[in-house]
Every structure is written in C-alpha cells, then in structure tokens.
C-alpha cells in the first residue's frame, strides 16, 4: 500500500525486535471470537489515477454548468486563488491543534489575525478561534447567554435560519431552555411589539439574524434596546458574512454568532464551514471554544498561545463551557486569507452584491412580486411568482438555471409560490436576464 513506509523485511525485523513471532501476537488481547477473519467489505484498493476517475464520475452526476440563485445559509462567492495556495501548504494543512506554541506560531498568529478581523467586522470586543458552524454557534451562544444571565429562556425570531433554529431546539431541549418563537411583520422584520411582550424575567436572550433568512436587515439597535430594557442579552446571528462589508455591524448586540462561510469557503454541499462566536469582553469567561492570545516568550519576544483553557473540556470536564474540542481551524485560515485579500475592499464587494441583488429583484420581480419591501436588504429577497415555486424551478432546470429556494416547507404562511433568491457577484447580468425571461414565459 503506497502510503505505508515499510518493506516486508522491516516488518519482520521489527517483530523480531519486539520478540513476537507474528503480527497476530500483537493483537492477542482481542478475544479470538471477536477477531475479524474476513476482508472488510469495502471497495478494492485503487491506484491514484483510479481514485481520481472514481470521484470525477461522482462529480459528473451533480449539477455543473448551472446558473444558481441559491443562498439561504450557503453563499456562492468568488474565492481568490490565494486561499487554496495558503491552505494547501502542508505546514498549515497537516499541523495539529497548536498546543505546543513554540512550533505552532504560524497557526496561532493567523488565528489571532482571524479573531481581530472578526471583532472589527462585527463590532464585538472578543472573538473565538471558530465553532463548528453557524447553527451550532447559535446554540452555543444561547447556552452562553443562559450562563451569563442566570436566566433560563430564549426568544427566537422566526426569521432566523430554520436549520439554525432546529439545531438550537436539539440543544435547548436537554438544557431545559424554553424557546419562544417570535413573529415577523409585513416588512419581513422582527415584530417589535410582540418582542416586547415576549420577553419575561426568565428571558436570558433574544436571538435574531441580520440580514435575516429573508435577506432583510433587522433594526438591531431597536431590538437591542427592548431586550436590554428587560435585562435580556441580544444575540445576533449572521449567515451572510459578506454583508458586513456594507451593512453596519451589530455593535448593540451582546453576542454575535456567525457563519463565516461566505468569506471564501466553498459551498461544498454544506461543509466544512466556519462558525464563530464574538461578544463583549465582559463575557469572556463564559465563551466556548478555543481562544488565541498574545503573550511573550522568556526573552520578551512577542508570541501567541491558546489561552483561558480553564473554560474548556480538557481541564474542566463536565463543568466546561462547552464540549467542543476540534474546531474549524483550517477553514478559519481560509476566511483569514479571504479577508486579507479583500481587506477594506469588502465594501466594494458588498456594493456589487447589493447591485446584483437589486437588479435581480427588479428584473425577476416583473413576473411577480418581491415580498417584504419597505426594509433594506442585502443580497437575498423573497419572490412570489404567483405560481408554485417547485414547478417554476423544475422548468428553470431545463434552461440550466437553479431557481430560488421554495419556502413553503418552513413558512407555510407564505404559500407555495414564495421562494428565496440570492444574487452575488458571481451572478452575471446575462444569467439574471435569462432567468427573468424564462420566468416571464411561464408566468
């Protein structure tokens, strides 16, 4: 087997040095009746070329060459070449968690830069070194708010990504955190009057998303004011991170739980992505996950370490702030490279997304109506085409277009005709026009 660096002679000599007659002697502690005496039922050994051919065959069975208008928590953005140049370096790709900081300064400094940029973009004071993804990040943020406030319940906007809410429900059930769902108004935003009524003395936090699942930007300041007045924390989830280039950061929030996938991570059928939690500094001791911190070595030279590990499972075991261990470090590095390449240019990127989505909403909207007007949007919008969204999408597929995501599954109140469309810098005018023409023909 080509990955194994031993000759048959090596193996024989090593067994002799150990003082056993055969390799099976080394497995003698496994009771005989449980030893597998057949080959595993897995595909036969493949050569490198065969492995590639195998996966090319898989790849060809998927959508390629389609114009896509899908977003909804997984965003298609251009990925600068440098991202893969950097993460393909073996020194990053094949390194371990930086528990030995003397030989992991590369990873540690990059994580420190990641944390800094996340703070800067979100308006928070501290950020961790990543969580699994946006959905688990949201669940962990709610559990963090419960620890911080000593209160027990959560009020969660229906405009938070439905799958984030499903994951939160799984965690909340066993943490015995009651979750109240919060309605939206005709402009697709959180209903402020209902919010005020929903918060009780037991509410640890209000969880919203902005831009929300409909692509609408929430009035974070107004929501924060209501939550804070009643002693609850505000958690803002962000699913479309590129919005931060042009949309005001949610600095009134106490905790931001975001999915950084939009920053240069492939949509990759849903993962690996890059969750991250950022917050006000005063909540530091309740932060889950790893943190990179600056310090000095014995000779006074600047260096970085993983710090405050007394919050974590390997020290605190069942009293830890979370059970997370392995996180999404290499994906955080992708994000860091993306953010370094764009830097202040994130504004220009944000403007292009605004322009594309604005044009798409106007053009596609001619065949139906764009819901939730009256509030600002980023690069997504809900379209009601007056015709079953699944049917429209099926006919678009014949034109090599993947239409917006039908919403009836999660929002039956919007009816079968509503779908969520996303246009990014990758969507050309020609694609948008083609989609509009196809839809107009069907309408």
């Amino acid at each position, binding site marked *: *087997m080509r*990955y194994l660096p031993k000759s048959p002679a090596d*193996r024989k000599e090593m067994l002799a040095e150990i003082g056993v007659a055969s390799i099976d002697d*080394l497995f003698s502690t*496994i009771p005989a009746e449980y030893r597998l005496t057949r*080959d*595993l*039922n*897995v595909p*036969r050994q493949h050569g490198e070329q065969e492995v*590639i051919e195998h996966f090319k065959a*898989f*790849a060809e*069975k998927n959508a390629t060459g389609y114009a*896509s208008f*899908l977003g909804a928590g*997984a965003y298609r953005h251009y990925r*600068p070449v440098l991202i*893969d140049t950097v993460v393909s370096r*073996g*020194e990053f790709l*094949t*390194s*371990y*968690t930086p528990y*030995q900081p*003397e*030989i992991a*300064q*590369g990873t540690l*400094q*990059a*994580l420190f830069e990641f944390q800094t940029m996340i703070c800067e973009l979100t308006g928070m004071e501290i950020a961790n070194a990543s969580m*699994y993804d*946006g959905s*688990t990040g949201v669940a962990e943020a709610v559990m963090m708010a419960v620890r911080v406030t000593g209160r027990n319940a959560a009020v969660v906007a229906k405009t938070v990504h439905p799958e984030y809410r499903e994951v939160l429900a799984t965690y909340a059930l*066993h943490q015995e955190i009651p979750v109240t769902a919060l309605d939206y108004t005709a402009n697709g935003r959180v209903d402020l009057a209902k919010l005020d009524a929903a918060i009780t003395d037991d509410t640890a936090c209000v969880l919203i998303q902005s831009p929300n699942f409909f692509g609408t930007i929430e009035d974070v300041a107004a929501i924060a004011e209501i939550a804070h007045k009643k002693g609850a924390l505000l958690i803002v989830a962000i699913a479309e991170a590129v919005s931060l280039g042009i949309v005001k950061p949610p600095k009134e929030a106490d905790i931001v739980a975001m999915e950084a996938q939009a920053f240069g991570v492939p949509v*990759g*059928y*849903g*993962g*690996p992505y890059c969750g991250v939690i950022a917050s006000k500094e005063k909540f530091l001791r309740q932060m889950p996950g790893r943190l*990179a*911190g600056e310090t000095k*070595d014995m*000779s*006074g030279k600047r260096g970085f370490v993983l710090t*405050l590990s007394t919050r974590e499972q390997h020290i*605190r*075991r*069942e009293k830890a702030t979370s*059970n*997370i261990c392995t996180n999404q470090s290499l994906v955080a590095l992708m994000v860091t490279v993306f953010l*370094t390449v*764009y830097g202040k240019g994130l504004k220009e990127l944000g403007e*292009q997304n*605004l322009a594309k989505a*604005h044009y798409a909403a106007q053009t596609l909207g001619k065949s139906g109506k764009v819901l939730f007007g009256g509030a600002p949007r980023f690069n997504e919008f809900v379209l009601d085409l007056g015709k079953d969204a699944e049917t429209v999408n099926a006919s678009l597929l014949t034109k090599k277009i993947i239409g917006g995501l039908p919403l009836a599954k999660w929002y039956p109140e919007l009816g079968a005709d509503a779908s969520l469309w996303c246009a990014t*810098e990758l969507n050309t005018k*020609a694609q948008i026009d083609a989609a509009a023409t196809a839809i107009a023909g069907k309408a």
Partner: protein
Amino acid sequence: MAEKFVGTPKKATTHVNQNENLIFEKSSPGKKAYRLSELDVPAVDAASLLGDAVRTDLGVMPELSEIEIVRHFTRLSTWNYAIDLGMFPLGSCTMKYNGRVNELVARLEGIAEAHPYQPESLSQGVLEIMKVLSDCLLDICGMDAITLQPAAGAHGEFTGILLARAYHESLGNARKKILIPDSAHGTNPATAAVVGYEVQNLKSNAKGMVDLAELEKLVDEDTAALMLTNPSTIGVFESEIHKIADILHAKGALLYMDGANMNALVGKTRPGDFGVDVMHLNLHKTFSTPHGGGGPGSGPVACKKILEPFLPTPLLVTKSDGKLGLEYNRPQTVGRVRMFYGNFGMFVRALAYILANGPDGLRQTTEDAVLNANYIRAKLEDTFELPYKTRSLHEVVFSDKRQAKNGVKTGDMGKRLIDYGFHAYTVSFPMVVQGAMMIEPTESESREELDLLIDALKQIAREAEENPELVQTAPHTTRVQRLDETTAARKPVLRWKAPVAATPVAVDTAAKEW
C-alpha cells in the same frame, strides 16, 4: 565531572526563519490585492438602499498587495511543525499522513461547488459519496445504521448520547447518569453534561482497565450508558469487553464507544461484534482527513438497529426508484445536530483514503500502526517507566517517574523533543497516569523515523540525568522560547489594536512567569 551531556539531534538543524509582523502592522492605505469583475448591472447607491443600516468604516481591515499576502502566510507557515515535516508522536490524536489526492478530489467542481439546497436530482453524485462512505464505515464498525452529520468527535459523542437518551425516553425513562472511566478524554464528561446527564466516575483497576466489580456496583436502573474508549486511552484493548456489555445490558443500559482509537481496530475487529450499541468515529484521525491546525473534523455516529429510529434528520436513504435522497420525516428523531449534512468535504477525503487502501491496505495500516507502537515500547521500556504492562495496541503510555526524580517532567521532555526535530508526544493525558508520556506513532512512520525518535528520547533521558536544566528550559532552537501562558490568561490580549498615535510598541523585560 566532565562537561554536562548535551544530546545531538540527528534529525533537526537550526534554520533561518524569517520575521513577520501581524498583517495589520504591514497594511498601508490605498493598496489592494483584488480587482472585482466589471459590474455588468447598474451601480447602486448603498446609502440610499440601506439607509441607516449602511456601513461607512472598516476599521483596521488590512490593505496590502498580493505578493505581500503570499509572503505573509508563507512565512507564518514556516513557523509550524507539520506531518509533512516529520512525526507527531501525539497519543490519542492519530496524526497520520494525509494523502494529497484527497485534496484534489475534494476540489473537483461538481463536488466543491455543490450547493446544499440544490435539487436531489442534481445531487446524486454527492449523495452517492455519502452512501458509499456510510456503507464502508458500517462494515468497518459492524453496525447497522449511521449518520454523518456530526462535525467532530465531541459532536459525535453529543449525537450518540442523544440517541441513548431518546432510546431510554421511548421506554419511559430517560435515566439520570452516564458512567465514565477516569481515563476518559475530557469531551466525554463535558458531552454527558450538555445532554443533561450526571457524570459518574468509574475507577480503573490496577491494569488501567474497567474494573468489572466496580462497574457491576455502579450500573443500575438510573444508568443510561457507559462511555468507553476502546482500546482505552492507555492503548490497551478491554479484553473483557463482552462482560462489560453484558453487565450494562442486563440493567438496560447502553454501551457507547468513543472511537478515537479505531486506528487500532480497523479490519481486525468490529465494535458491533463485541457488544457496542453506539459509537463515533473521528474521520480526522482514523480516516486521514487533515487536522488543519485544529480542524475541521468529522464525527460520524454508527449504531445498532434499536437506535436507528432516533438518528438525526435528514437521513440518507435509497428511495423506491433506486435514487438516493434525504429523509426528513422521522417522527422519533433526536432532531438536527448541525445544519445541512455535516462536514461533507471530509467525507470526500475519508472515502478517497478508503479507496486508496482497500480492505488489504486498511488491515495492513492497522497492523503497521500497532507494530510501530510496540516497537517503540520495546525499545524504550528500559528507559522510561511503563506503568501498565498489558500488551499495547496502537499507542504506549510511559510515565516520567524516573526523570521526575531529577525535576524533569513529562512536559519538559516533550518540549525537548522539539529540539530533536519532533513534535512533543501527548503530555499529562490520560490522567490515570501521573506524568503521562503518551506516544502514538501511527502507521505513517518508517523504521528510520521511529529509530530517530527512540534515539532522541534516549538522549533526552540521559540529559535529564546529567543536565536536567537543559531539558527544563527546552526548547532552545525554536523561533520563540517557552511562552508566558500565565500572563496570557491573566491579562488576555485576544485581538490586535492600532497603537495609540506614534507610541512605539514597548517590549517588556523578560516575563517572570510561564
């Protein structure tokens, strides 16, 4: 006495290592590393579209050219140790070679650019990857059903214990506690707590294994499960595993297996055959998906038929027309543990690893991993204390007992190993061994690399005798010396801030504590 002994590292030399500031310190206004495509739709005025919500300031976000960015990250990369540079004898972590073809196939267009909500009819290839991988893992584990959704080992533990809880609830009583051996990884008790269970500690016996009498005493109708790592964290197979399972099952409790150490078992024995009800795998350990400086991982959970109804949604199914699909309608599910379907990119890499190996390669891999650990044990047994003498599988745990007499601790020797061109072994884990030195070579090391490690550890043991201070202050050849972790925790600096106007960054005198 003659000059104090200083060992001669055979593998490592000192090399030039370039300085590099933080990216923010290198930034200057007006530089750019990107150029967007020309805008082909009418430009918009952000302020008028967004109103109050418009952002005007991007603070310290950097401005650099492309060459500066390449150099920045390339320089940083040279400060890391990595599998591509040499051995990581890190016990419990299974730092094996990461085949490069895995990276190539994960980046194929139809795979990397598959959107999680694209229609199932256009996703048959990605679903097939999940299906083939699932089938392979099921046969490897000897289990009946699987979910690939969990994002890492600890997340798999969470999912597995959720299944146990749902199973007990379906019988009318969720039960109260999870038993966890004192040798367990920290994620085990932390997980039990997240799922709302009490943790009851199970003391190991004199051989470092589960104490059957103790287990029998503790298991009762309130016990939901035992979380057992097998082979244990001291690298030893629980030979009485079937009795452990019987004791649990007699009281209606389940056997959960932490599969972090599956690299010792693949192709040789199957957890499903020896009584395990539910387990997780770490694809980033056993199945060679790269560790990436701390992640991403992937923690599939495999289980017996009795737990299948509770698996997270959606579940991958083969439909009546033979097409693959995702099933959401599962009334008894524990719910979702992650959005979408898991760390899909890791499934691609793990399957590429399995294809490259085949059944013969997987078995040989396990055998070589065990051979390597036993070789190290045989060669170092006289040098270091071996607290548990039971036959090792894929890793061996020594202790620093002999060297500690001279004030040299496991952590010191681990740091000194860095000067010899290696990563440290796992230090101070498992907690059942005082001063643990936990070594897992994996199958990826040649005999030459193993001999270099053995030689380095022998020289370090001699240094510990004759020149303890040298070891206590190691490493000596790295870009930074030991770092002051106390101050890092006491006065946390977790982000960069622009220095206040023109005050140069002051460099303190050498820190006093570390």
